């Protein structure tokens, strides 16, 4: 028994050593690099479109007729919320799987490539109608607004591509588990499993929605049930942003402690946070429908609880992060309540970016809790406040963590190093981005409280006094947007520099170890099937009520409309 | 050995408890829904029809004692109802139609009572009755304007009425038969027209026989 256990430890050690010397295999690296390349090109394009919007919204730029505000907005949303985030997440986690599980299986690598091209194909299909102004329906594409069917077919391919990558990840993890009985999945792969489980199950509802829409958009079916479509969309829409958030916290839990030279937080609690996020995530999406008709107040109240429940693992995360900082700083001699503050490597962009991202999640998360309660939601629903909120959560918390990851992941993949110059560029970029986001999201939150609606091109509503009162904030928004564009350019430059031009060398994949003498994590954390069943049960519980109501007691449906 | 017997014994006790529980809970395996239980209870209690004031389809106002000395065949409805009520009234006509003509109006009165007095004014009731070939005399439709009286009646006869959020009501439906002394003597399934008609006819026949 002991010798066998010793043996696995030995092979594990050998694998780790081999990984350290050889790094990731060139094939796996190419896969992840391709994903990251697409992600950052999407950032560049999406950022540029965002700037156009910001300037237009502030009344400083008139858009040409062949590229109107709503086209730009649809493309901006799709590029950043779907393409940037999905491609980065998949590239990052596939690199993580390859690193922690000793390489991808050839079959899995092939699946990831097929997924890559399916998504690219789907994306091109979706973009063509947007450019032709045949699909100005926003990232949310609520029926009965109907885009060109090509747009929805494109979405189907994107979803299929994502499923391909999810299954690839499951196969790789399962095969590792078979080869390493009795061991826990390495923590980063555990996060990856959670993320891919959610990507698969979270995109199921939207897949159903799109299959409802396609025959209707073609005109084969006359009407559509708008509330069912909307509900299915939000079961997916909110899960998606929480998946990106979960990707970001994987770096906080696993990577950041290593960068500050510390240890990971309790392995058990980390895994519990992952499990909790997987189980409770999909049901949280319903708070987007708090002011919708057709759903009773008590059902909405139940959903407020389900949305707020997600706050609990996030609050656990907040504690864990600061505890790690404090513990590490104490070891280094930091004293007092905030002694940790002085002992952190502030000059290291790999730490600074994710740290600011974490700090941003404090107001961002608080805003989220505020928004998902009934009455407060009614104040801010569909106003600029919401836009400010998700720029703070996605644009700052998630994307800045992604930026921080890129400063070691890209050199690691391309077998190059992070030079001091690029590090400095990164620090400046982080500061520019922080200033831009703070300014922009503050302006958005405030304008939203005053009533300025989201998703609306520049308008004064016939010089209405109230609407004119929003203009100063919108001006701030434009300045923030400009700063962000500078940040985008710097970031994209840094990424491609590190990918192709930085000096050759060895970069480590920073994975923190557990505290010495930590209690072993119980085995039940690995029962993924059980977590999935619990997740499904909760989803059924949450969605059976509104969906049965909308389907059984359905009003006559709506025909398609093209209103742009 | 001893141990095995004990678990067997406790299993038996638990099983016995289960049988008792189900027996009590379902009135001796009779009533699995509250509706059956309610009907069974009503047949046992034979509650008195409270002395409420009715306003009928001709806007006449009188108390229930108007029908003293006659059997009264009752249903509860609201005219805005799109589901059960039209069926209920159609079936009521079915019973009306099957009864021997000599009893109608003389020994038995038909009465449809609305539990939505706000919307069902005499005018509405009068146009509604025509859809079911009610003559408005031997088969009247009436509302009870006093909410307290209405609730008293609904409560006594076990009629549950829950408003939903769309201006409709969920309610249970049945045929109710009140005897000449004003006591509820039978609650019948409104879907079994033949059965109800036969039942009422035989009661009326008995009564007629007694008189002769």
């Amino acid at each position, binding site marked *: 028994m002991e010798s066998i256990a010793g043996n696995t430890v030995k092979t594990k050690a050998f694998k780790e050593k081999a990984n350290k010397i050889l790094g990731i295999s060139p094939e796996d690296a190419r896969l992840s690099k391709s994903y990251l390349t697409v992600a950052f090109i999407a950032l560049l394009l999406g950022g540029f479109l965002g700037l156009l919007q910001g300037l237009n919204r502030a009344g400083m730029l008139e858009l040409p007729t062949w590229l109107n505000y709503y086209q730009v907005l649809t493309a901006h949303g799709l590029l950043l919320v779907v393409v940037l985030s999905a491609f980065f997440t998949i590239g990052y986690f596939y690199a993580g799987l390859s690193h922690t599980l000793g390489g991808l299986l050839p079959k899995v690598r092939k699946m990831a490539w097929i997924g890559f091209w399916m998504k690219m194909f789907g994306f091109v299909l979706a973009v063509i109608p947007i450019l032709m102004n045949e699909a100005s329906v926003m990232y949310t594409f609520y029926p009965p607004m109907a885009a060109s069917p090509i747009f929805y077919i494109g979405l189907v391919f994107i979803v299929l591509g994502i499923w391909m990558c999810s299954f690839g990840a499951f196969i790789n993890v399962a095969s590792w588990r078979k080869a390493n009985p009795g061991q826990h999945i390495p923590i980063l792969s555990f996060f990856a499993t959670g993320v891919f489980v959610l990507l698969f199950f979270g995109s199921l509802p939207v897949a159903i929605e799109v299959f409802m829409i396609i025959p209707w958009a073609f005109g084969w079916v006359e009407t559509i049930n708008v509330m069912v479509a909307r509900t299915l969309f939000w079961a997916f829409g909110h899960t998606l942003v929480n998946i990106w958030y979960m990707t970001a916290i994987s770096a906080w839990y696993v990577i950041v402690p290593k960068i500050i030279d510390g240890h990971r937080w309790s392995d058990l609690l980390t895994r519990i946070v992952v499990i909790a996020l997987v189980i409770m995530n999909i049901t949280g999406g319903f708070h987007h429908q708090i*002011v919708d008709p057709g759903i009773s107040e008590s059902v909405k109240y139940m959903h407020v609880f389900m949305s707020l429940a997600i706050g609990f693992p996030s*609050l656990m995360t907040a504690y864990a992060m600061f505890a790690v900082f404090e513990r590490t700083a104490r070891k280094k001699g930091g004293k007092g309540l905030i002694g940790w503050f002085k002992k952190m490597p502030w000059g290291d962009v790999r730490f600074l970016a994710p740290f600011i991202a974490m700090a941003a999640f404090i107001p961002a998360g608080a805003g989220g809790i505020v928004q998902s309660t009934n009455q407060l*939601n009614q104040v801010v629903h569909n*106003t600029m406040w919401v836009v400010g909120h998700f720029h703070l959560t996605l644009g700052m918390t998630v994307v800045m963590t992604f930026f921080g990851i890129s400063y070691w992941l890209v050199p690691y993949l391309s077998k190059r190093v992070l030079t001091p110059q690029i590090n400095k560029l990164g620090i400046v970029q982080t500061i520019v981005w922080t200033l831009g986001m703070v300014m922009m999201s503050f302006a958005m939150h405030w304008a939203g409280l005053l009533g300025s609606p989201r998703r609306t091109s520049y308008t004064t509503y016939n010089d209405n006094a109230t609407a004119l009162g929003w203009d100063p904030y919108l001006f701030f928004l434009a300045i923030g947007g400009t700063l962000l564009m500078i940040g985008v350019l710097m970031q994209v430059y840094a990424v491609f520099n590190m990918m192709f031009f930085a000096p050759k060398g060895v970069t480590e994949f920073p994975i923190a170890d557990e505290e010495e003498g930590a209690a072993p994590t119980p085995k039940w954390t690995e029962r993924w099937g059980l977590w999935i069943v619990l997740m499904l049960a909760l989803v059924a519980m949450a969605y059976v009520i509104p969906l049965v109501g909308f389907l059984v007691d359905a009003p006559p449906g*709506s025909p398609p409309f093209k209103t742009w | 050995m001893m141990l095995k017997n004990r678990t067997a014994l406790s299993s038996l006790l638990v099983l016995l408890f289960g049988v008792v529980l189900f027996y009590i809970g379902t009135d001796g395996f009779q009533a699995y829904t509250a509706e059956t239980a309610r009907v069974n209870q009503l047949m046992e209690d034979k509650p008195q029809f409270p002395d409420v004031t009715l306003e009928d389809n001709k806007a006449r106002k009188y108390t229930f004692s108007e029908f003293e000395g006659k059997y009264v065949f009752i249903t509860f409805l609201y005219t805005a109802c799109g589901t059960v009520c039209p069926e209920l009234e159609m079936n009521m006509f079915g019973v009306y139609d099957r009864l021997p003509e000599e009893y109608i109006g003389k020994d038995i009165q038909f009465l449809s009572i609305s539990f939505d007095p706000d919307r069902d004014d005499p005018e509405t009731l009068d146009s509604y009755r025509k859809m079911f070939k009610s003559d408005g005399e031997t088969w009247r439709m009436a509302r009870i304007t006093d909410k307290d009286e209405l609730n008293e009646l609904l409560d006594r006869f076990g009629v549950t009425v829950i408003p939903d959020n769309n*201006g409709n009501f969920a309610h249970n439906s049945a045929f109710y038969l009140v005897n000449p002394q004003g006591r509820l003597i039978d609650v019948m399934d409104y879907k079994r027209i033949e059965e109800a008609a036969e039942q009422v006819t035989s009661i009326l026949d008995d009564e007629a026989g007694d008189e002769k």
Partner: protein
Amino acid sequence: MHRSEKVWLLLSFGMIIGFMLITGYQAFALGMGPPSHEERIDPQKVDETAPFDRPGITKIGENEYEVVMTLQIFSFTPNQIEVPAGSTVHFTLTSKDVVHGFQVADTNINAMVMPGYVQKISQKFEKPGEYLVLCNEYCGAGHQMMATTITVK
């Protein structure tokens, strides 16, 4: 588990429950629940269905008004609403085409108006002034033009 962690978890849990209690109290005890009317309507026959066959404003009581309103690209019908200060207005809304939003700046009126559903929301207008009514759900090329005003005298 550290003591501090337990305290933190308890606080977190307490905060979430606190939010639930406040929300629940406001929604159910104070009647401040979100607009959740459940009536259905045929979205293609709005013009023929009461009360939307006659959109407009009616006085239904002392300082109480009912506004029956349809939303369509890119306007509100009726377009001009005038009420005296201190009156409570009950809005009954539905959409004739796509999804719209109904928001009145500087008030708590904010509701989704879906085709196929009747939405209801009430508000007491205390202060005189001109209130901006706008559609806050993207509804097409003229979405930024979809606005009207409520004049409170």
